[in-house]
């Protein structure tokens, strides 16, 4: 169905793909893996003519992507769901967004209505049909994007890291739906860093240095999946009904007044008093002990990011209280937060300037700033040579670690990491987790001993580093306990 012959593609001064040959058959389920920057997304954009190869030829159903006349037909055949859920919606409401693509390919109005119902129902989000997209959570938006592409019923659907940000329950559901579509003859190309997302693939390829470095059968992916079972796989629906009625009472941790983070009867609602009012947290009480990693997990809309912002002092709770070492949260002082993709907030010219920024602002003498910068860079495991480079020129993993260094340099007592491994490949992910362990165990030159609050929808990853686990479900606290207790109860 899709054939790539001798494909090469470069950005100015940077070769991305070199002499790639690949054939994707009708009805095939192909998995594609590779590190950040290996050329996966470039490959995706070449498949439906968003990019054109500088060498070689790509044909879809016999038509070349270089032929402008065929482009619309090719795009009708190859649908793509991209990674960023915020940059794909065209309509104001969910319904309008799905209608957009269907009107483009002139689906009759009555059929549009049927498809909207059918695909929203298939993904379990029928109730979102009339909702305003900008008010949905990231995960919900991505489900809408998936529904919008599926509803166009292309012969091949490419998922470019599109399900990585879904929680385990939704990911499992979407993977099942994808398999069902595949069994009905739709070709699927699944681009992912997560081996467990590849378990239904007929074939898996890995891209490295712009070439297809490895082609394997489904067994390879299954083997990888087995390795990961007991981590992500056992998570099931994080924050789901399993944990209900097992809630430990507030203060069951080691909390003493004036030490650690005490959260008491915390409730919060967005847009209160309006028709868009969304209760985000309901009477949450818990204790986060000092000098450890506490993982806060939950599915889409569970309230974990809301809780993070409240602890960080960036929002004021509707009711309840938060005390950090007996004091209210003071952002940038007694608590720091790193949002998802913290590298997007760089504005300095070099990594050195970025790490030194907060230190200089705090009035530290220049030599002390220099020492702290070096120790922070060492602590996160970055090479000191990156200090003179632009943060924008680092790899994704290095950018993430540089963002960690910015926080660590300030010697914070409490750091909140919101989805710290989002969008990273396995190697970068491991570096990030290693850095977190060093931060908390005091092994680094920066002194360590930081209390980390690790927010994630991926329970497997949280269990790798967290001492304690907190599970949220629809704004309710459904579990609070040690890592071992959590594993025992699974």
């Amino acid at each position, binding site marked *: 169905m899709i054939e790539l012959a001798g494909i090469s593609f470069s950005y100015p001064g940077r070769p991305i793909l070199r002499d790639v040959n690949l054939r994707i058959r009708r009805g095939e389920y192909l998995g594609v893996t590779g590190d950040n920057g290996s050329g996966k997304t470039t490959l995706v954009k070449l498949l439906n003519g968003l990019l054109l190869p500088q060498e070689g030829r790509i044909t879809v159903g016999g038509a070349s992507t270089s032929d402008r006349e065929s482009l619309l037909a090719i795009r*009708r055949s190859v649908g793509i769901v991209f990674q960023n859920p915020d940059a*794909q919606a065209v309509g*104001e409401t969910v319904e309008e967004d799905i*209608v957009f693509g269907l*009107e483009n390919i*002139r689906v009759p109005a009555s059929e549009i209505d049927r498809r909207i119902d059918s695909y929203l129902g298939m993904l379990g989000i029928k109730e979102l049909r009339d909702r305003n997209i900008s008010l949905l959570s990231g995960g919900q938006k991505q489900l809408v994007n998936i529904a919008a592409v599926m509803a166009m019923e292309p012969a091949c659907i490419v998922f470019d890291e599109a399900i990585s940000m879904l929680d385990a329950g939704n990911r499992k559901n979407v993977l099942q739906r994808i398999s069902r579509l595949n069994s009905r003859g739709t070709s699927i190309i699944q681009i992912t860093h997560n081996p467990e997302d590849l378990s239904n693939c007929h074939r898996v390829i890995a891209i490295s240095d712009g070439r297809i470095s490895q082609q394997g059968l489904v067994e390879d992916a299954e083997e990888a999946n087995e390795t990961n079972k007991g981590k992500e796989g056992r998570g099931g629906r994080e924050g789901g009904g399993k944990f209900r009625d097992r809630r430990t009472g507030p203060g069951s941790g080691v909390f003493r007044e004036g030490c650690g983070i005490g959260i008491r009867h915390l409730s919060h609602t967005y847009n209160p008093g309006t028709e868009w009012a969304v209760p985000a947290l309901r009477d949450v009480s818990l204790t986060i002990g000092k000098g450890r990693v506490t993982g806060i997990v939950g599915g889409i809309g569970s309230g974990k990011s809301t809780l993070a912002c409240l602890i960080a002092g960036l929002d004021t709770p509707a009711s309840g209280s938060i005390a950090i070492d007996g004091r209210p949260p003071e952002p940038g002082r007694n608590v720091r937060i790193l949002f998802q993709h913290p590298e997007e*907030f760089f504005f300095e010219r070099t990594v050195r300037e970025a790490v030194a920024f907060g230190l200089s602002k705090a009035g530290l003498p220049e030599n002390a700033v220099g020492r702290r910068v070096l120790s922070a860079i060492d602590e996160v495991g970055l090479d000191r040579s990156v200090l003179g480079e632009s943060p924008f020129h680092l790899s994704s993993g290095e950018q993430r670690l540089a963002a960690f260094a910015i926080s660590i340099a300030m010697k914070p007592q409490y750091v909140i990491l919101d989805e710290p491994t989002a969008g990273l490949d396995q190697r970068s992910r491991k570096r990030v987790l290693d850095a977190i362990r060093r931060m908390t165990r005091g092994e680094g030159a920066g002194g360590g001993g930081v209390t980390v609050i690790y927010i994630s929808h991926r329970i497997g990853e949280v269990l790798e580093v967290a001492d304690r686990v907190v599970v949220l479900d629809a704004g309710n606290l459904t579990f609070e306990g040690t890592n071992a207790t959590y594993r025992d109860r699974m």
Partner: protein
Amino acid sequence: MFATYRKGNSLLHRIEARTKLLLTAGTGILVYLADPLGLGLLSIALFLLIRVAGIPASSLVKGLRPMVIFFAMIFLTHLLLQGSGVVASAIPVARFVLLILFTTVLLHTTSQSELKMALVALMKPLGGFGRELAFMVGVAMALIPGLMRDKETIARAQTARGCKPAGLRGFVALIVPLLRRSFRRADELSDALESRCYHRDREYYYYGGALAGKDYLLLGGFGAVLVLILVL
């Protein structure tokens, strides 16, 4: 500056978006032409519309607040540089206030999608150019909430880093990531649009329909009043 749409079932909410858009444009002409007495009558009409639409006063004040310096400058320019009296200097300010408030009524009672579809329909006579223009306006409107959210997120992230969003440094800390995000978002959106088979000859047929009798009545009545005022 402008209000956000609030769902409702008032008389104004139920009027077709094309009609509301044309009436608002026509009212703009009236506001421009009106003498003090006319401005008074328009103010009464505006007050009634606000009551009918159920728009809270706080929302109107919020919409006007960012414009206060602009209003003051207009007033002082007329008063001090052109030597107009206090009342004469207040009239141009009143025109601007009325224009903004009439637009606020439109935006409060018409959703983005309704506005987009109204633009598409009204620009139909312009052919492909009109369709593309309406589409671009629609996409720009869809991007605004994302941009506002990005600005908010970046400001929070920089605050969390200890960088207050004030002064030149604070401005740079906000604008550099915001521009990078916006350009990237625009690129990504363009890829998503093309992947979903967007083409300039696309038709809009799922929503919308013909104007009803009451719309023609409203437009006809308003048009007649406007022509009368222009002729007299």
